[in-house]
Every structure is written in C-alpha cells, then in structure tokens.
C-alpha cells in the first residue's frame, strides 16, 4: 500500500496561542476513503488546510504524493494543488461567476479550452442536479445548491486526493446520500478521499471507510483502524468526465 499522505509530529499554531493541532502522526493510503470527525473547534478544518496546501505546519514533516511539502518552494505548490480537489467549508465560490463558470474554473486554470470543457462541466452539473441553475450566480443559489456547485468544482478535475470539509452540512438527507455516492464513485476510480464531518449518519454510508477522530487538536484514532461496517449502497452509474 502506498501512502499518499504522511504526517510526522505535525503541529500547527496560529499566531502566538497554543497549538491548534499537535503531535499528528498518521498516513493515508492511496485509494482509501476517510472520514475525519470531531467536535466543532477540534481542528478538522485546520488539518484539512494542511492537506490542501493552504497552510504550512508550524513543526513536523508532511509528505504529499511522496514529496516533502513543508519546505517546498511556493512556485511548486500550484502543480500539487491541481492534483487535489477541495470542497471548502464555506464553499468559496467566485461570486461573480455563474455556477457553470465556477465548476469550469479548475479546468480553465489547467489550460483546458472552452470547447473541451463544455461536456464535462455540463455532465457534472447534471450529476449534482443543477443543470437548470447553470447560469445562476452563487448569490442567487440556496445554501445546498452552492454546496453542490462547490462539490462539482472539487471533483471536475478528477483529483488524486479529494478533501471535503463538511460537504453535506447544507443539504437534505437525500442529496447528502447522492453526494456521498458521488464521492464513492470517484473513490472507485482511484481518488483518495478525506471527508470532514460531524454528521454521524454519513459515517455508515460508505463501505470500507476509515474514521479519524480529532479531539482538541489531537488524533484519537491515529491508526485509522476503526472501520465502519459496510452498508454497501449500490454503486451508481459514474458520471463521464
């Protein structure tokens, strides 16, 4: 098994306070599905920020895709970020771009032409049920709709690692199931998935998912051995990217 992510003695402190995250030692296996749980304020978002390269740790070593990313020059970061899909807790949709253009953004940044990206973007929007809202601006979308746009944007580039911060916080059960199914489908294609959530209903929905729990900045189950019983939902048809 190859480790896609390795943390060794990682600590993170914001400013001069105490450590928000401390003594993190774990590795994530390539192609696995992880849930990251923990109370609000436990440090889930902070840990994910380290994963998606929005934050450098205050101490320790992080290897991502086999490369030390702590000391990496910032000019090399974009190349790594393009291999990671992120669903931000606060969505971070570009406010003056339509749902369509937000979903298309990672492909545009990667240099895909408008003609080439039309089909995948439309299929992605269809998958998250937003075909009708493709040309709506984020401000005119409901919270759940914005979240789905954010998810579509995170997975459109078929990332090697998908990091999702409370991705189902604003949608109803049915849509939450649908989105988790989407993540599973992506996982089956080889993407390593890390979903932070405090929604315990979600945890049982993915077969073979592993759970990591944060408590006051420390990992409670660092081995990742805790496995939720498979309740194996039927594998959905995959969207064609």
């Amino acid at each position, binding site marked *: 098994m190859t480790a896609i992510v390795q943390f060794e003695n990682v600590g993170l402190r914001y400013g001069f306070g105490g450590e928000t995250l401390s003594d993190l030692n774990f590795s994530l296996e390539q192609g696995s599905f992880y849930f990251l749980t923990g109370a609000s304020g436990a440090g889930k978002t902070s840990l994910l920020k380290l994963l998606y390269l929005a*934050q450098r740790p205050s101490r320790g070593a992080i290897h991502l895709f086999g490369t030390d990313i702590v000391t990496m020059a910032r000019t090399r970061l974009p190349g790594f970020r393009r291999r990671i899909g992120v669903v931000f807790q606060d969505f*971070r949709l570009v406010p*003056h*771009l339509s749902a369509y253009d937000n979903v*298309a*953004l990672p492909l545009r*940044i*990667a240099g895909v032409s408008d003609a080439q990206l039309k089909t*995948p973007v439309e299929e992605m929007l269809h998958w998250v049920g937003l075909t009708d809202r493709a040309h709506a601006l984020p401000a005119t979308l409901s919270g759940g709709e914005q979240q789905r746009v954010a998810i579509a944007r995170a997975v459109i580039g078929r990332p090697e690692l998908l990091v999702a911060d409370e991705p189902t916080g604003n949608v109803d059960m049915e849509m939450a199931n649908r989105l988790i199914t989407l993540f599973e489908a992506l996982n089956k294609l080889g993407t390593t998935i890390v979903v932070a959530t405090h929604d315990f209903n979600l945890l049982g929905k993915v077969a073979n998912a592993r759970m990591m729990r944060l408590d006051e900045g420390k990992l409670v189950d660092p081995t990742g051995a805790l496995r939720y019983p498979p309740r194996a939902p039927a594998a959905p048809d995959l969207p064609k990217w």
Partner: protein
Amino acid sequence: MVSAPTMDSVIPKGSANDRLLPQGRLAGPMPWIVAIMIFLTVLACAAGIALGEGAAGMRDAVANRLTIQVTEADAARRDALVPRIRSAIARLPGVGRVTVAPQEELVRQLEPWLGADAAAAEIPIPALIDVDLSVEGQAGDATRAKVAEAVAAITPEARVEPHAAYIAPVAALVRTIGWIALAIVALMAVATSFVVVLAARGAHATHRGTIEVMHMLGATDGQVMRLFQRRMTRDISFGSIVGLVAAGAVILLVGRSIRLLAGDLMGSIALPWWGWVVLPILPIAFIGVAWFAARLTLQSALSRSL
C-alpha cells in the same frame, strides 16, 4: 479530464474568463487619473520644450545686434557726429547693416512722455544707430569691442549697448521656467507610478477572495497576474490616449493664440516640429512605467500569500 498543457498555461481568452475579475472596462477612477496625469504631463513637457526653444530664439534674435546712443546734447554737433560714427564702423570687418533711426520716429515715440513739441523745445534727444553684426561668438565679441573703440575715438558722448545684455535675464528666466516644466514631468512620472501602485494594491485587496480561490485551485502567480494586467493595460492605455488627445488640443489652441498675439519675443515661444514627435512618446513611456509598477506591486502582494 484533459491534461494540462503547461503549468503556467494562459487562461484562454473569452467572455467567461474576462469575467474572472468583475467590473467591466473603465470602471473605477484609474483610467481618469491616468488621463489627468498624462494631460498635465504632456502640457508641462510641451511648455518645457517651447520655452527652451523660445529662450534660444530670443538670444539668437538679439545676440548680434547693438545700438549706439549718441548722447551729445548739442543738436548740431550730434547731427555731425552721426554720419562720422556711421561711416567709421561700417568699414569695420564683421559689421553688417548699419541703420540710423530717423529722428522724426524717435520724436514720435517720445511724444507721449515729452509732449507734442518736444522737438521744438530744446530737449536733447539722443540719436540711435542700430548695428547688425555679421559674425557670431568670439568674433562677435571682438567686433563689439572694435565698434566700441571706434566710437570712443570719435566722441566720448556716445554709448554702445549690446541687446544681448538686455535680453539675457529674460531669456534665462524663460529657460529656467522651461527646466521647471521638465522637472514637473519627472515628478508626474513618479506620482503616476505611485497612483498605479495604489490602484494595484486596491485591486489586489478587492479581489483577494477570488485570488485565494484561484491559488487553491492551482493557479500560478503568473496566471493571476495576467488577469490583472489585461485590465490594467486597458485602463492605462485608455487614460493615456484621452490625456494625450486633450493635451494636444490645448497645445494647438494656445499655440495659435500665442502666434496671433505675439510680439517679437513671444513669437519665438513655439513648439518645434520634433516636439510633436516627443509628446506622443511620453504616454508610451508612462504606460511602460505604470505597467512595471503595477506588475511589481502585484508580484510582491501575491508572493506574500502561500
């Protein structure tokens, strides 16, 4: 997904990508600030060039002239001296035209001060002899000295006045104003850069959220920068063209007024043909300076984020 051609690939042009940064063209005060800066700069530069030319023109016009004032009080003696002086200096090498100002003309010019019967009254009026030298520079100085010698040999009651001596302070003043105008041009370039730096910082702050998202989605600094540069180049170019056209119109109008009003001195203040070549280059230089200022500002702002 289609693999990325290069890391730093240009986000393809198109309406969707122009919208990556909100606000259409010519939004905000930036183009108008640039327009005003360019307008003032071009005017100052034109003034600098024209005044510099004017000062040189004034000196050229009078440098080779001198006037001999025969101040002999006795009218008969004076009238006898004038032809003697005239023939003595006309013979000197380096002396060109020698003209005696007609006495009636002098009387007429003095009338307002001395009254209509100045000539009748026994008020002594000096005779004036205008001399044009046909040589310049050191030869001119030597000739002036010889003229003064020749005049002194004939009578002590005459003074030689080189015109350049009168005009020198005026010409110097005009030239100084010209230099000040050019210094203003330099200051304007500096001020414009600062304005552009502030505008670039403002743009960065305004779009910080969008920039952050783009970074997180894997955009390079170069890609982010290009979005801004397209806008900035458009704004700066628009401002420059408006400023340049407005300044050109003003220069034409003022130039025409000066020609209409001009006496001998003012007439030499004019924009030479090469001025019309230099002035349009100015905004281009400004665009270059502004563009670099914007680029450096953005670069340093972007490099402060992770």
